[in-house]
C-alpha cells in the first residue's frame, strides 16, 4: 500500500484532468481554456496544482490564465507554471485543493428530477433480463 499524507488522497492523473476540466468550466472559463488547463494540471506538483485551482476559482485571474494558454500555443510551455515536471500520473492531492476543484466542478452538474433519473440515461428502473 502506498503511504498517504494525512487528509490528502491519491488521485489518478485521469481524475485530476477530469476534475480540473469540470472545475474550469464551472468557474466560467471557456471550454478550450479548460481543456488546456486540464492537460497542464496533470503535470503539476501539488503546490502548483493548488495555485492553479485558486486561480481558476478567482474570476479576476481568468485573463491571466487565458493569456498563459495563448503563450503556450507559441512556446509550448505555460509561463505561469514553469517548473513543470514531465511526470504524469497518480499522486497525492491536498484535500483543500481537491475540495476547491470539486466545488467548482459541481457547478456543471444538473440536479436530479424524477424525469431525468428515469429517462435521461436511457435505462429502466429494473434492468435484468
Amino acid at each position, binding site marked *: 500500500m502506498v503511504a498517504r499524507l494525512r487528509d490528502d488522497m491519491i488521485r489518478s492523473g485521469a481524475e485530476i484532468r477530469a476534475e480540473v476540466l469540470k472545475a474550469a468550466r464551472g468557474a466560467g472559463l471557456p471550454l478550450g481554456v479548460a481543456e488546456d488547463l486540464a492537460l497542464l494540471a496533470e503535470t503539476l506538483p501539488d503546490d502548483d496544482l493548488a495555485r492553479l485551482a485558486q486561480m481558476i476559482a478567482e474570476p479576476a485571474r481568468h485573463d491571466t490564465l487565458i493569456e498563459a494558454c495563448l503563450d503556450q500555443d507559441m512556446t509550448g510551455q505555460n509561463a505561469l507554471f514553469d517548473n513543470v515536471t514531465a511526470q504524469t500520473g497518480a499522486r497525492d492531492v491536498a484535500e483543500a485543493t481537491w475540495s476547491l476543484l470539486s466545488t467548482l466542478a459541481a457547478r456543471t452538474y444538473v440536479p436530479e428530477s424524477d424525469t431525468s433519473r428515469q429517462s435521461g440515461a*436511457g435505462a429502466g428502473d429494473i434492468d435484468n433480463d
Partner: protein
Amino acid sequence: MPLRPPQEVMRLKRMGASFPTRLSFLPTLLRRLRDENVTVSRPVWEIDENGFGHAVYTLTLGGYRYSLVAVSNDLPDEDRTDRVIATAWDTAYVLYDGLPDDAEIARIVASAPKQEAARFSPRDLILSRANKSVRLFSRVVEALKAGQQPDEDLVRQTGYLMRTTAVYGNGKFGIADRAVIAERPGLSGPFMAEMLTVWLIRGFTHDLVEHLGGKPLSRHLTRHLGIGNATRLGMAPCLVSHPLLLDAWMQVRETALARLRALPDLSPEEVFDLRRLAQRAARHLEEWNVPDAAAQADIELLRDEWQEIRRWLESDAPDGACPLDALMRHAERYSLSCQELTLALALEPFGALIDGLTECQATPFHPRIAPEMPLDALRQHIAQDWEWALDIDFTAPDQSAQFWYVSEEKQEPRLGRRYDEPGAELESPLDIARQVQALSKSLDGFAGDVPGFLRAHPEHRAALRRVQTLGRHPYSEIRDNLIAETCRPIDMLRCKLAFFGAAKFDPKSDRWTRITLAQGAPLFDELERADDWWLPAFGMT
C-alpha cells in the same frame, strides 16, 4: 484506391450500422494472446457451494503478469439493476497488475463490490461488475445438477451467463492511469486491458456455473456463452472528447478496406473463405433476434439483403478485376447495415495483409492549436469540412431539441430535452456543430492571425482547435448535429462497441443497448482458434 470519404463514413446512421471486424480490439487481443502462447491459470478458487466467495485467474502477457480477482456476493433479485446508480451487483472484478498476495486479495474482496463508492490503487488496472442473466444462469445450473446439458435454444437466444454493467479503466476511482500500461506489449492498444478483463470474466462465469452445477458444460455451449453488456449513453461522449482516437480507429479500418479493394484478384482459397464466412454470417443473422420491433425489422431486412450478397459471391463475379471493390460497390445498392457488414466480411480473410494496421489504433497525442495557420486557411477548412454545420438553424426546435449534461447524482452523462426540462444552461459541450458555426460567424471580417483571434475570442478556442484538428485528421469528427431531435446516442454507442468487437446489438431505446462480447471466442485452452471466430454461429467448429 482511395479511402471512403469521411463525409460518408462519419455519419451517425452509418456509424450506427457498424459491425465488429478482425481489427476490433477483442479479436486483436486474442490473436496476441495466441501469438504469445499465453496460458491462464487459476491459483485461487474460494467459491462456496452457493457460488459466493472469490477467485483469482492469472496470466503473463508481454512479460507482465496480470490477474483477475473475481468476487461473487449474494444479491437479492429485486436489487439487480444495470443502472450506473445501482449499489450492489452479483459479481465484482479487478484486473490486477501482478499476482495479488493475500493482503491485496482481501483488499479487493472488500472494495471491489463497492465499485464507485470505494477507492482503488494504481495496482488495480480495471474495475468491473456483472449481474447474472436472470433468464439463463440458474437454468444452466439446474440442468447441470440434473446431469443434463441446458436447453440449447435458451443458450442460443441468451448468449451469456452474466452481463457487465460497467468496465472502468484509465484512472477512474483511483485505479491505474492508462499511462501505466500504455507502453506494455499486448496492452498498448486501445481498451486492451478492458478486453482482457471481459474475456477473463467470461471464463469465470463458465467456471461458476460448472462449479454450481457439479458437471462440465459442453464445449459448443460454453463457446457460445460470451459476456453481455448493458451500455448506456455514458459511453457516447467519449467519441467526441477523443477525436484523435476516433480518427485512428477509422483510419485503420478504412485503410484496410482500401488496401483490399485494390487487390487485383483473389485466389480460389480466398473466394472460398469469403463464401464460407458469408454463410456463417447468414446463420449469425438468423440467430440474432431482438425484442425491439424496429431493430428486428432492420435485422430481417439485412437477412434478405445478405442473401443477395451471398448470391454475388457464389456467382463468378469474384473472378473479375478488383473483386472486393466490386463487392463493396454491389453492396451500395443495399442498406447501410448491409454495406458495413460487407466491409467486415471483406476484411476477415485477409489478416496477413491488414492485421499490422492495428498498431496504429492507439495514439498518445492530444489535439493542439496551430497558431501559425493563416485565418484564411482556417476559413477554408470550415468551408470545406463544416459546410453542413454552417447551414443549420440552431434556433429551430428540431435542431436544438436535445442537450447533453452530467447529472448531480453519480455524475452520470445524460441527454435531456431542451425545451421540456431544466438544465440546458449547464449543457455539456457536445454541440460541436453549433460551436463551429459560432466560430465561423466571429471569423467573418476578422483581420489578423490565430493568436489575435483567440485573444479577442477565447470562447472559440475549443472549436478552432477542432477545426484545425479535422484538417489533419479527417475522421476525427462526427459530421452530424449532436443536439438535433434526430441524434440517436445509440449510433455512437454501437460504433464504439463494434470497435470493441461486440455483436448481437439489442437496443432497448435510442440511448441504451445490450450487446454480447466474446461470443464464440476461444476459451482459455483454445487460443489457437483466435483467427476465425468473427460473427460466430451456434455450434460452429
